[in-house]
């Protein structure tokens, strides 16, 4: 059974299709990343999953339960960390957690214990009497995660959880998410920080114009779009005729030669480097540097491709 199964999901607004026939399956216990540029449909998809947005068409099951028919069970299984802060001007952050637990059917005594545990765990206990408006941005982010965990959900959905958070706190939150995932919980993360997805997610879906344009494990995705850059610095002993010979060897490749540095682009270094070194012969080579394409470059290439289409 999948944690989440989305079939032919479409969300149409008056003049815009936000999600376009999207299909996606997320396994139980998976750490899944949903990446895409602004307006790609990430937040809309998450909004539909969590009951904040109505779908136009399509079927969604969460842990085998229909999103619409079994909405009570589905909502108990999901914890949402929204992208934007929301405020309740009347409540302290402690009361906010107690009430949130209550909404999920947790009895008052247990809700108070849970709120205390989470506030302490997220280092917010000293600020428990403050309202949401009175705490810092980083504390607000932590509180949103605590609020999403208050009913002990099976699936945690985080929409840009580290936006505007400093590096130290971001690393702390990453560790927290890793720990949560280790408990067997499913995590779905949307992020603009591709480093974050690269660091945390096992599988990544890239969404653009409301469609999944690529989905695979992080490793497969990086291998699939692997287009490294090899920089070979030639030895000072290299004569002009040696260089001409090397140019002939590399005539099938995309390369440039500038001041005794050969830059070969769009190449899979893991497969082709050994053959190149052999052909050029090692004695002409001073140093070799390999630049691997990261997720960010893959992401940009894929989303640029769809824009061109």
């Amino acid at each position, binding site marked *: 059974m999948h944690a989440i199964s989305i079939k032919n999901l479409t969300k149409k*607004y008056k003049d815009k299709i936000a999600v376009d026939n999207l299909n996606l399956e997320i396994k139980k216990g998976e750490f899944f990343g949903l990446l895409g540029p602004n307006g790609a449909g990430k937040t809309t998809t998450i*909004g539909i999953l*969590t*009951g*904040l*947005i*109505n779908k136009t068409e399509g079927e969604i099951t969460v842990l085998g339960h229909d999103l619409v028919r*079994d*909405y*009570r*069970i589905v*909502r*108990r299984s*999901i914890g*949402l960390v*929204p992208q*934007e802060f*929301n*405020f*309740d*001007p*009347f*409540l302290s952050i402690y009361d*906010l957690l107690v*009430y*949130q637990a*209550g*909404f*999920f*059917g*947790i*009895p*008052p005594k*247990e809700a108070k214990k849970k709120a205390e545990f989470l506030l302490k765990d997220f280092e917010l206990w000293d600020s428990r009497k403050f309202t949401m408006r009175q705490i810092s941005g980083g504390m607000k982010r932590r509180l949103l995660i605590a*609020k999403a965990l208050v009913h*002990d959900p099976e699936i945690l959905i985080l929409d840009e959880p580290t936006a505007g958070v400093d590096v130290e706190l971001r690393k702390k939150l990453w560790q927290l998410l890793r720990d949560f995932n280790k408990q067997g919980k499913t995590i779905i993360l949307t992020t603009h920080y591709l480093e974050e997805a690269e660091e945390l997610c096992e599988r990544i879906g890239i969404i653009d114009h409301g469609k999944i344009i690529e989905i695979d494990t992080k490793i497969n995705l990086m291998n699939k779009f692997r287009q490294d850059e090899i920089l070979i610095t030639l030895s000072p002993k290299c004569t002009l005729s040696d260089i001409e010979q090397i140019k002939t060897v590399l005539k099938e490749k995309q390369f440039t030669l500038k001041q005794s540095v050969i830059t070969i682009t769009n190449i899979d270094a893991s497969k082709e480097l050994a053959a190149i070194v052999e052909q050029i012969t090692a004695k002409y080579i001073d140093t070799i540097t390999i630049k691997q394409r990261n997720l960010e470059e893959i992401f940009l290439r894929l989303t640029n491709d769809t824009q061109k289409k």
Partner: protein
Amino acid sequence: MTHKRNNSSYFSNYIGFYTLVKKEIVRFMSVAAQTFYPPIISSVLYMFIFGLAIGSFVKNIDGFNYLTFLIPGLIMMNIINSAYANTSSSLFIARFLKSIEDMLVSPLSYMEMVLAYVLGGIVRGLLVGGVILIISFFFVKIPFVNIPLMLFFAIFTSIIFSCIGILIALVSEKFDHLSILTTFIINPLTYLGGVFYSTKMLPPMLAKVTYFNPMFYMISGLRYSMLGIQEGNIWFATGLVFFMGVGLFLLCVYLFKIGYKIRQ
């Protein structure tokens, strides 16, 4: 951790429902200086000015002095305003500051959500009305002709205006919109619905026009149940208030279910 998991029924998340009702009551009590004391103070002033000072110049109405006649009208006027203000401001603020999302992502049913908001309005309406009634005991003697009917009119009028408050909170885009209904519709209809006078004091033509004002039936219904003064048909008033309450409640549940202005 195990919690009730009945999915199909409209009403099964009792703890969630209790939590939302409590939240609504705590909310208005935490700002009692804005929500609770002003209607009480203004009612006491009305009692003093219209009842004790000016009232002595008004002849008895159906055997009751003017202040006694005034009390049910004052109570109903404040029930109407308090119930409306409670749901309209609470839901609008929740929409405006997006805290409504905390409720929408939870396993509360739409019926539970609306009922909790309406109960918040009823509690505020009855609390304000009840305190005004208790204060009135210092000035007048009320015979209480039919207490169940009195409670019926008080509760159902609270339901009606709590639901109207919900509807206005859903359609409003700015805070100003909430007061537009109060200023241009609720207050005029309440004042012209017989809070301060009997239709017998009006020229026959204006008395007939008053019968088209639904507030008239709420006010005269409560006055009948408290004093026994009958204006208009009490059965019609009872039916009208009942069906308005049920109809508006079901409309609110429907709008929550389709997510009107609360879900995109």
